[in-house]
């Protein structure tokens, strides 16, 4: 009697969450998987009462074969490959340096964490302004009003200015700006986690290394990195997951064109592609692309876990 009353009450506490989860989490999972396998299905045909679709892998085949998908795939993978290792190594070095100094650590920690709370669209726009060349480029008599602060610095050291993000810019230059921005954006979280890990390492290991007068580099590679490996694995895995879902940082810099003015969509990513298909009312394609993205993230995470099983010392 008492027990059944408890049961009933527990479900009452859970009710609001359960209702919302059923509508906005459980149903989407079922529906998205179903739509991905329905060829020729879209919101339009549904509204028009015309529901001629057949079950099959057509959406997947269409999406994978589409040049936009291949471009988005290439962009997403390149961004991951460049930004994850780079930001992890930089974060590790910064965290070790922060951990080594006593005075001002709190203040420096705060400064390094600041990018985290900023709005990634807003700061992307600031980055765009830094790399932007204002004026007419590519015409017979180019008229440049400003080269942007980054080009000004390059010119100060006698280099040639680069067309980073404007019309006519090259793919590698766009990529470079993106990598710089994403790494900058990814650092705070990684530093925070790694610094937390560093502070929990037993001081005795370092004292022993000091007795043996081990060089600094060795202390880093033989003591710090192995003992920090669970945290490193964690930031690498979350880094890859975030990397595959990259979207807003590109909107921040290039706007919704997802590319420089002369070649819109050149820097589109997987997530951007999903939203594009959705706005064109191609739910089937969007669903298939989302499932592919989920599959990729799952596989990459499993590989990461497998690698860390061998390398991580708990």
């Amino acid at each position, binding site marked *: 009697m008492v027990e059944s009353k408890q049961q009933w009450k527990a479900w009452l506490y859970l009710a609001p969450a359960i209702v*919302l989860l059923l509508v906005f989490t459980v149903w989407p999972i079922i529906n998205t998987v179903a739509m991905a396998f329905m060829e020729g299905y879209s919101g339009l045909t549904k509204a028009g009462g015309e529901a001629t679709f057949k079950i099959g892998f057509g959406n997947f085949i269409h999406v994978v074969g589409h040049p936009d998908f291949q471009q988005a795939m290439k962009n997403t993978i390149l961004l991951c490959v460049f930004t994850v290792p780079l930001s992890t190594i930089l974060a590790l070095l910064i965290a070790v340096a922060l951990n080594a100094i006593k005075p001002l650590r709190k203040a420096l920690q705060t400064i390094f964490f600041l990018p985290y709370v900023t709005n990634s669209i807003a700061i992307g726009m*600031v980055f765009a302004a830094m790399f932007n060349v204002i004026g007419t480029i590519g015409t017979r008599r180019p008229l440049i009003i400003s080269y942007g602060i980054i080009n000004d610095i390059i010119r100060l050291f006698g280099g040639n200015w680069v067309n980073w993000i404007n019309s006519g810019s090259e793919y590698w230059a766009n990529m470079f700006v993106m990598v710089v921005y994403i790494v900058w954006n990814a650092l705070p979280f990684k530093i925070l986690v790694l610094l937390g890990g560093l502070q929990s390492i037993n001081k005795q290991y370092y004292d022993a290394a000091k007795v043996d007068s081990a060089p600094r580099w060795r202390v880093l590679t033989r003591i710090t990195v192995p003992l920090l490996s669970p945290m490193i694995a964690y930031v690498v895995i979350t880094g890859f997951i975030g990397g595959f879902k990259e979207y807003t940082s590109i909107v921040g810099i290039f706007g919704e064109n997802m590319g420089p003015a002369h070649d819109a969509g050149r820097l589109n990513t997987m997530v951007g592609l999903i939203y594009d298909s959705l706005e064109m009312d191609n*739910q089937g394609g969007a669903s298939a692309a989302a499932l592919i993205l989920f599959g990729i993230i799952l596989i990459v995470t499993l590989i990461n876990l497998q690698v860390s099983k061998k390398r991580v010392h708990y």
Partner: protein
Amino acid sequence: MSNYAEAFTTANLGRLFMNTLYVGLVSTLLSLVITILTAFAFARLEFKGKELLFAALLATMMIPGELFTITNYSTVISFGWLNTYTVLIVPFLVSIFYIYLLRQNFLQIPNELYLAAKVDGTGDFKYLWKVMVPLSLPTLISITILKMMGAWNSYIWPRLVTKSDDMELITNGLRNAFTDTTGDVNYPVQMAAVTLVSIPLFLVFVFLRKYIMSGVSRSGIKG
């Protein structure tokens, strides 16, 4: 200063500030209530299938949000919610991560307190609000800040479901208001707007750094 004034009017920043503040406050409040109730059920109450249900909820955290967005977009259209505040608030009220965070916190509160309250004839509901909630205040503050930051920084969903400038949130206005039809950008004014939008976040960060950092280090999610 005239750049700031121009930024404010061009992007209709006043209206967007109010929109964002309203959506942020309401969704945080409702989300807190739901999170507290759910976390309490998982931490203290007994019911059939508790472990299984909790594991299933945690498993959904692995799925990328885009997968939900596709269907949710059709769902909110069929509900007739486009261009309303509801559409910006309701779909994101339940966060498994916040439930998980708070449940862990609730579990740390010693069982003796619960039994003592039972002996005194205090009901579950009263115990939850008078004992557990005050004891978990730091976690609740972390959740509040992260949720508010989420509203401030959200871009994709509002972009999708608001079709008029009046209903947009701050980041949408910021991104799109300063690029004219030829694609030229009025940089000084745009940067003034960036500053205006960034200042509140900056202030929150300076004063509530401790809560943000402890929340973030446990989550690994942004906004």
